[in-house]
């Protein structure tokens, strides 16, 4: 790519995964209409899910998943050591994701319940940035490929990227989705960062907050209006805790 008389080489990227479902990696192979140019825009040197051969000379590492085992901590640190830029891909990497709910349970008992007398190693779930410094976080469960594409273009051209500051409501309006709160469902849309194009409310599911909070959300008013509509503090808290993006935010003082 040569533009404005600036040469932009294809960045060498690697994709790694940790405690996760690999759904975000899968998005990298989705959005088929632009898949070929997407794969051509970068040089993939390490991507276990789709390619054999593990190059170590990458500049940008995309890391999917939360961290929940000691070998993962070591592996992540090694990746951080090699990558010029470390990108947390998806809600698990950014916030711990659904995995974070595990931390609310006794891990010993959990292990005994699942594995009986042969327990497996497990640590409380952490997000990537809780273990190593992160340069860029792309939230979403799964991530939006469109957003990933935009970010990759910015990485190729080496210009700063900004996420939408506003909440999901804007994108529901854009696609004529009738407000689910008006239909009687709980929806975190008013306090969650847009950029997903609001597929969930359009599919009949209120927002569960996988992208984390929008910029300066009005939590107090949101809690008040949700309560007014008959939703309990427990419901709201469970919803906000689901993807880990609202860590530390609680309505009603108990959790």
């Amino acid at each position: 790519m040569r533009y404005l008389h600036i040469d932009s080489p294809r960045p060498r990227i690697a994709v790694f995964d940790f405690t996760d479902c690999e759904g975000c990696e899968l998005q990298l192979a989705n959005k088929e209409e632009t898949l070929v140019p997407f794969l051509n825009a970068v040089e993939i040197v390490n991507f276990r899910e789709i390619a054999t051969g593990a190059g170590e000379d990458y500049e940008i590492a995309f890391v999917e998943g939360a961290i929940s085992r000691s070998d993962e901590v070591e592996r992540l640190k090694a990746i951080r050591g090699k990558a010029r830029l470390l990108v947390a891909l998806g809600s698990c990497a950014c916030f711990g994701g659904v995995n974070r709910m595990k931390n609310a349970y006794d891990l010993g008992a959990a292990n005994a319940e699942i594995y009986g007398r042969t327990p497996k190693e497990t640590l409380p779930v952490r997000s990537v940035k809780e273990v190593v410094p992160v340069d860029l976080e792309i939230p979403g469960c799964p991530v939006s490929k469109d957003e990933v594409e935009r970010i990759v273009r910015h990485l190729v051209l080496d210009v700063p990227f900004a996420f939408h500051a506003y909440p999901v409501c804007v994108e529901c309006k854009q696609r004529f989705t009738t407000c689910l709160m008006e239909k009687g469902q709980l929806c975190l849309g008013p306090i969650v960062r847009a950029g997903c194009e609001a597929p969930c409310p359009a599919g009949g599911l209120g927002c569960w907050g996988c992208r984390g909070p929008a910029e300066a959300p009005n939590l107090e008013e949101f809690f008040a209006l949700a309560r007014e509509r008959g939703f309990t503090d427990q419901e709201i808290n469970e919803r906000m805790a689901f993807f880990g993006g609202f860590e530390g935010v609680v309505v009603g003082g108990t959790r």
Partner: protein
Amino acid sequence: MKNLLLPYEVTKEAEMAEPLDFNRRSRLMNTHRVFKAEISSITQLTEKEKLFHIRILDPAERQRFTFLPGQFVMVEVPGYGEVPISIAGSASNRGFIELCIRRAGMVTSVLHRAKAGARVGLRGPFGTSFPVAMMKDHHVLLIAGGLGLAPLRSAILHVTENRSDFRNVHILYGTKSPDQLLFDYQYEQWRRVDGVNLSIIVEEGGDGWTGEVGLVTRLLDRIPIEPDRTYAIVCGPPVMFKFVCNKLGELGIPMRRMFVSLERRMHCGMGKCCRCNIGSTFTCKDGPVFDYWTAINLKEAI
């Protein structure tokens, strides 16, 4: 309902036949067409600011592009976006347009990486201008703080090029530190123009600085001012022009004869997007140059 009216279309030829009526009721219909231009040279002014010389490629379009000091253009970097930039060069120069651009957002950082020869687009010019015609036969105070020198430079160049039109001319310029001084290589040239006084001041001098230290308002203390025969143009951040204008007010200059240039983020330049609105005023078409009376009466302006 077939055969409804087709949309009105404008060809380049038709458009060229229309007078380019800056910021008055323009009939130009292809509102987003840009002049294709080339960055002919780039000068690093400070760590964050570069001066771009930009030449419109089509000779007829180049000839047609004229502006008044204080106006701005939308600089289009295709694929990245548009940014509003005040013209820093002389209105009499038909060869190229000078833009002093600070690296701040996405588009400006791309521009900072561009090399000479790169092609960009220009839309405009837009907005109101400094009242150079009214200033004729008056004393002139040209005061800038920081990046404010960029829009003010077009006024400075107008005044120096038409020196005989004006009485006493004072240019006062202040920045935070010496390394932020813009166009330092031109100060000598401006000073040599007969009867132009240039004073520079910085807030924090540091080693090697032998010039004045303090706020730009300090420079005003030493200038003899004839309030009823003086125009002032003040460019800089709101906090700076507020202090300067208050001081000028104390010296007896009427607010209607002080002019300031306001900064907002224009997206369209045509008074449509509302992003640059201050209260009910569009900075892009009612501004960016306002007299100080109007400016202080804009809700939330300062």
